[in-house]
C-alpha cells in the first residue's frame, strides 16, 4: 500500500491520441479525489477508484471539481495549470490525491503524494498548485 507520485502512463499515451482537453470552460471536466495512506496509486493507475478514497465531513466521493487553465506556451515549453482547490468546512485526513478526467471515463492524469497525512478539522483543506510557468507548472511538455 503506497501512493507514488507520478504522471500516469496511460495519460501520456492518451495525450498522443487526443483524449484530454484542458481548455478552460469548453474543455473536459477534471476532478481531484483525495486518498488515505492505505491507497495504492502510482504511474500504473489508469482511472479513478473509490478504494481507500477519503471519507468525512465536507468531502463527497469523487472529490472536487478543478478549474482548468487553458494550455499556453513559454519559450519552447507547453504548460497547463489548475486553480487551487479548497474543500470547505472539512474534517478529513488525506495522504495523496488523483487528478482524473471526469468527462473521459474517469481516466487518470496525475497521482499526487502529499508526503505525509494532511488533516483539517472543521476547517479548510486547500491544494495549492505551483506557479504556472515553464519551470513550475503542474503539467509541462518541454
Amino acid at each position, binding site marked *: 500500500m503506497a501512493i507514488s*507520485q507520478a504522471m500516469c502512463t496511460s495519460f501520456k499515451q492518451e495525450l498522443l491520441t487526443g483524449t484530454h482537453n484542458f481548455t478552460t470552460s469548453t474543455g473536459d471536466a477534471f476532478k481531484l479525489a483525495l486518498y488515505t495512506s492505505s491507497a495504492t496509486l502510482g504511474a500504473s493507475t489508469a482511472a479513478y477508484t473509490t478504494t481507500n478514497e477519503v471519507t468525512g465531513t465536507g468531502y463527497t466521493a469523487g472529490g472536487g471539481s478543478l478549474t482548468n487553465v487553458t494550455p499556453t506556451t513559454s519559450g519552447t515549453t507547453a504548460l497547463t495549470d489548475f486553480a487551487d482547490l479548497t474543500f470547505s468546512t472539512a474534517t478529513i485526513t*488525506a495522504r495523496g490525491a488523483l487528478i482524473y478526467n471526469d468527462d473521459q471515463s474517469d481516466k487518470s492524469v496525475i497521482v499526487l503524494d502529499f508526503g505525509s497525512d494532511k488533516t483539517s478539522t472543521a*476547517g479548510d483543506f486547500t491544494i495549492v498548485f505551483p506557479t504556472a510557468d515553464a519551470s513550475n507548472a503542474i503539467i509541462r511538455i518541454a
Partner: protein
Amino acid sequence: MKLDFEFPTNGTIKDLGIQVHTTNNRGFTPEEHAIRCAEKIVSVSSEAHPAIRAQAHAFKSQVIRAVEQTLCEAVKSDRTTIYNALNEAGHPELADLIRRL
C-alpha cells in the same frame, strides 16, 4: 523527437511545488489568502542581484498588503449581503450574529 514530460516519477510533493494548506476550526484569514496570492504573482529568485531581490520582496509585501485589504473589504461586503438575506428571511438574531463577527 523526444517529448520530455517534466514530472518527477518518484518525487515527493516538494518536487512538484504542490502544497496542502489546512486549518482547524476556522477558515483561512485574509492575510493567509493574501500571502498565497502574492506567492502566485511574485516569485523571487535566490540567484537574482541583491538589489533586484530586495526590490522584488518590497513589491511582494505591497501586493500582500493590497490583496489583504481588498479581501477584508470583500468579507465585510459579503457579511452585509448575508445579514440582509437572513433579515429578509425572518432570522434577525442570526443576522445579528453575522453582523457581530
